[in-house]
């Protein structure tokens, strides 16, 4: 199934859900948005996780400056041009404005304001300490209030706990799938679809896991194994193709549509021992050490995390991982730290390519050359 088919299928799914009376809440796809609360309140969470192109980026320039990240630009472009396969965006009832980064705020605010989609707010502190955890809880409670005002009834703790369990289980299955040794493009395709649909995709995910576990790559000697860190590879992006065309194989997606999502799971015992579901959500925020939002330890946490992944991989397979740091142009979080991330990992002997790009077609040739040269050289 190609992506266009997926989008049409997703449109049908959303339409059906809407007919059942469900409301759709969209948000720009990073980490930390409590989708379990949306689920517990009966909403369909819709992650904007779609890559851009020239037209989408251009269409955003009426609303913000072109020196905004290409992903945020494209999110606006999607609402402004509503390409055929994205008609499902007409079904969005609410939009979350959040401060994962300031481009997230600006783009979400613009989408809500200019495309007349009522807004919900969910903000986070930048630091991570006892007080920011308390603040996170205030935001959760405020978010709950905002949702309750819409649905007119209380969101019960039991319902939230059920949603947490549901998502937790789903993430565990995603992690299981992620651990299969299959082609990166195949893996990403399923992961993207699963994360787009959410836990409802679980039966399909399980059958994919079963199917692919019998068809894992047996001899990957000739493949150059890659970990992608930095910004996500979103739906409709050609990046993964370029890597595979250059002889690479992505074995780990260390991004929002990847590790950041399905590594954030709770042990059963933790769930069972925690009475207040909000505490679980706070705990997850606390444990999200590798997310790019927080300061001041993102860089050192990220370096040690990647180092660990690479070392484990070497021990397990005898192969060295190449690191591609995917930087969507003008991304505050990933771009600002990129030179230092590269320097620190290279000092430890890990090869890194800082791959900066926007979504323009003209970029493709250059990206391909850089990826080839990097994989060749290592």
């Amino acid at each position, binding site marked *: 199934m190609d992506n266009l088919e997926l989008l049409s299928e997703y449109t049908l799914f959303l339409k059906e859900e809407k007919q059942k009376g469900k409301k759709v809440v969209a948000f720009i796809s990073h980490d930390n948005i409590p989708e379990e609360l949306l689920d517990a309140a009966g909403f369909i969470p819709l992650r904007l996780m779609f890559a851009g192109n020239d037209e989408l980026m251009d269409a955003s320039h009426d609303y913000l400056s072109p020196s905004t990240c290409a992903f945020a630009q494209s999110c606006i472009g999607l609402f402004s041009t509503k390409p055929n396969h994205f008609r499902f965006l007409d079904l969005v009832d609410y939009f979350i404005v959040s401060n994962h980064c300031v481009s997230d705020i600006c783009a979400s605010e613009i989408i809500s304001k200019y495309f007349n989609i009522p807004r919900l707010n969910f903000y986070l502190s930048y630091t991570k300490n006892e007080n920011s955890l308390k603040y996170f809880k*205030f935001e959760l409670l405020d978010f709950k209030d905002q949702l309750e005002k819409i649905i007119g009834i209380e969101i019960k703790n039991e319902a939230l706990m059920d949603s947490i369990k549901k998502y937790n289980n789903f993430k565990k299955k995603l992690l299981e799938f992620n651990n299969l040794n299959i082609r990166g493009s195949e893996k990403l395709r399923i992961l993207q679809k699963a994360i787009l649909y959410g836990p409802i995709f679980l039966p399909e995910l399980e059958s994919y896991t079963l199917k692919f576990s019998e068809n894992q790559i047996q001899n990957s000697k000739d493949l150059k194994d890659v970990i992608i860190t930095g910004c996500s590879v979103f739906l409709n992006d050609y990046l993964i193709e370029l890597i595979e065309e250059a002889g690479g194989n992505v074995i780990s997606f260390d991004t929002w549509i990847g590790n950041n999502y399905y590594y954030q799971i709770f042990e059963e015992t933790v769930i069972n021992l925690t009475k207040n579901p909000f505490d679980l959500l706070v705990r997850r925020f606390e444990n999200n050490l590798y997310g790019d939002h927080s*300061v001041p330890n993102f860089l050192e946490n990220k370096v040690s995390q990647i180092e660990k992944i690479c070392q484990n991989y070497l021990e397990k397979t005898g192969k060295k991982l190449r690191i591609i740091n995917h930087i969507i142009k003008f991304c505050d979080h990933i771009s600002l730290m990129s030179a230092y991330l590269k320097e620190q990992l290279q000092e430890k002997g890990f090869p890194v390519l800082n791959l900066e790009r926007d979504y323009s077609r003209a970029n493709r040739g250059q990206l391909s050359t850089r990826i080839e040269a990097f994989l060749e050289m290592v």
Partner: protein
Amino acid sequence: MSLMADEIVRFSSLLRIAFNLLTGRDYLKRKKFREKKKLISVALPFSDIVYGFPDLVPVFPIRTHVFKMHKYLQYLGSGANIFGWKNVSNFLGFLKNLGIGDINKIIDEIIDNVIDAVNEKYNEMYDIGIENGIPSDFCYGIKSLYGMHVSKGKNYDAILNYTIRCSAWNKYHESLKTINNTSKQIWIDIPPRNVGDALELLVNNLYDGISELEKISGNTYDSNILRNHFKVANEIRRSYKSILYEISTSDFYPCNPATFSEILVILNNSFQDYNSNAIRYRDNMTALVHEIKERIRNKIGMDVSNMPRILITPMFGGWEPKTHEIIYELGGRALYADWDVLLLLEDIPIEKISDPVEAYAHYLMNATTNGIGCDNNTLTDSYFRIAEKLNVDGLIFIQLFGCHSVSNCYPMLKEKIRRELEIPSMALTFNKIGENVEQVKTRLGAFMEMFR
């Protein structure tokens, strides 16, 4: 009083502010090595809690650099060292001895030169920032601030970081950790919104920051010292506002409007750390207001009633400093009021709240929620509020290359200003000082045509 004497009197306080700004390095060296005080790097006007510790000195990092200083300002400085700044006749005698005729011109030149000297240094630091790993995609302010820490960061005992809504800003602070032998970082998180007991958390965060400062200082925090500083800080704010709202909106200026704009630029720069000495700064600000008012009362200066008022904003992250001069040549007067846009010129409410830390938390929360805002809607309203308050005839919005935060306000602001104030506005892009002055001239030429 002779005209010559009068010309000097009008700005002796400003010259002191400018002198203190440019000679920061010597002053700070003295503080650090002779008086054994500790330097704390601060940026944006967030220096206040450092003043709670008399042995800590807040420094906006550009001030640890050596500037090329106009020779007359140097003479004035030397003269002041010999005769004392307050002794204006000695000043004059000193200048007369130099055989200088056109004092007016010299004063303008000196002030102009202060801006040039600071900006030249900013550009130098910008290049160092890029050479040391900040991608060129980031805003001018971040690149140059990083450069300042690379080049003189070792002088600081700590860097005080407040988180704000700009992610690039917060990440920039983290990135300072990559500099070799970098100083200790103290973080104070300002909650993005005032939900739940966010204000109480901010109070706690400030207290945590204070206890970090205590460790550096070796002294215990004393609320009386901080309260007294806030009184001084509020007086500074009132003087600043008086210059902004009483003087800049009036039809008669104490000098030509380009020089007046430069005064506003110097205040904008020096307000961030009060030139490392709040009491001295307060006294200079009070004197400046007095001098300006005296001059206006004596009808000495310039009638500017037919010159359109143009608000230029935001400029704190970087802007082309020739802008106000060009506007003046085109018949207008440029105003800068960034800190009040962000509500950082509001009083710290120590009259109403007895705990100074709590009072400061209220001040910061107000600036965050109502000034800077957690989104561009609020920020747009803030720009709008100041445009209205200053009763401006036009607005120039600096669209800073690489700024993904405030710069993205312009489309909303333009619409609101056109609809509700019915005045023209224009966006000017900016990347680096001096990079496209010709283009700025052309664009401003077209803009100012609208007022003819």
